[in-house]
């Protein structure tokens, strides 16, 4: 995907929820409560340079779907959320990049240093927590 023409979309409010599916291997122990956290590995771009894929929660809901619908095709997965404001605070932009199959698809654009990935992971909250995942 050529992202060179994409910029931060200001129509996406800072409060907008960005959802990210979380593979069970990306959930790691943390001695701090609640005892589990998302690994920084969950918030990196793809190997081919495609920016971090997320779903705009507002669009998901607008299309009549729930959080459980998003992870239902992926048994054992959880669903985490960061806000657009959190991403922007880490020098990321958010672009709407809908696909024919996924109208809620968006991309988090910007260099993802390890420190930035860890900051995004630390800021993530659960929409569907590991204990709630199928």
């Amino acid at each position: 995907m050529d992202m060179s023409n994409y910029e931060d979309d200001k129509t996406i409010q800072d409060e907008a929820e960005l959802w990210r599916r979380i593979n069970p291997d990306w959930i790691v122990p943390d001695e701090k409560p609640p005892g589990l956290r998302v690994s920084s590995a969950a918030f990196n771009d793809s190997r081919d340079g495609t920016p971090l894929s997320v779903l705009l929660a507002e669009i998901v809901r607008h299309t009549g779907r729930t959080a459980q619908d998003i992870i239902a095709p992926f048994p054992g997965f959880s669903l985490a959320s960061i806000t657009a404001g959190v991403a922007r605070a880490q020098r990321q932009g958010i672009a709407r990049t809908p696909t024919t199959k996924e109208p809620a698809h968006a991309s988090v654009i910007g260099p993802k240093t390890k420190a930035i990935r860890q900051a995004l992971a630390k800021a993530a909250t659960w929409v569907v927590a590991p204990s709630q995942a199928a």
Partner: protein
Amino acid sequence: MLKYCFPRGEVIVTLPDNPPSWMVPTVEALGELLALPPNWDAYGAPRVDPAFALAAMRLAWETFPDNTPQPSVVPTSSGGLQFEWHTRNIDLEIEFLSPSRLHVLCEDLRSGQSWESEVNRDLKPLTDALAVLTRPL
């Protein structure tokens, strides 16, 4: 002896007598990563490269003190992996960028200090970070 298969071969690990407590679960976790299928992350990730798993085993054997807490062994979307710990007031991550290049991020939650560094031949930043992780509380 532990044996793990992947599409183009297998990895056989011979453990020493009386291995440190972190070793067997870490080796087993690395072996499990080799069984992940393509698209394991739902975002198109490739399989974990066995060369990364081997490099990780060697690095752990060569650098982890015996009293190292068991790491989390986490696959990355690029086909690599990382070790990470969030314990003893330390957040430490060792990411394999290639079998011979590491990126280390260490945050001491008590002092608030953090640093990150790419590591290849000189492992001192890594051994320093492990020393912080295994220091007496």
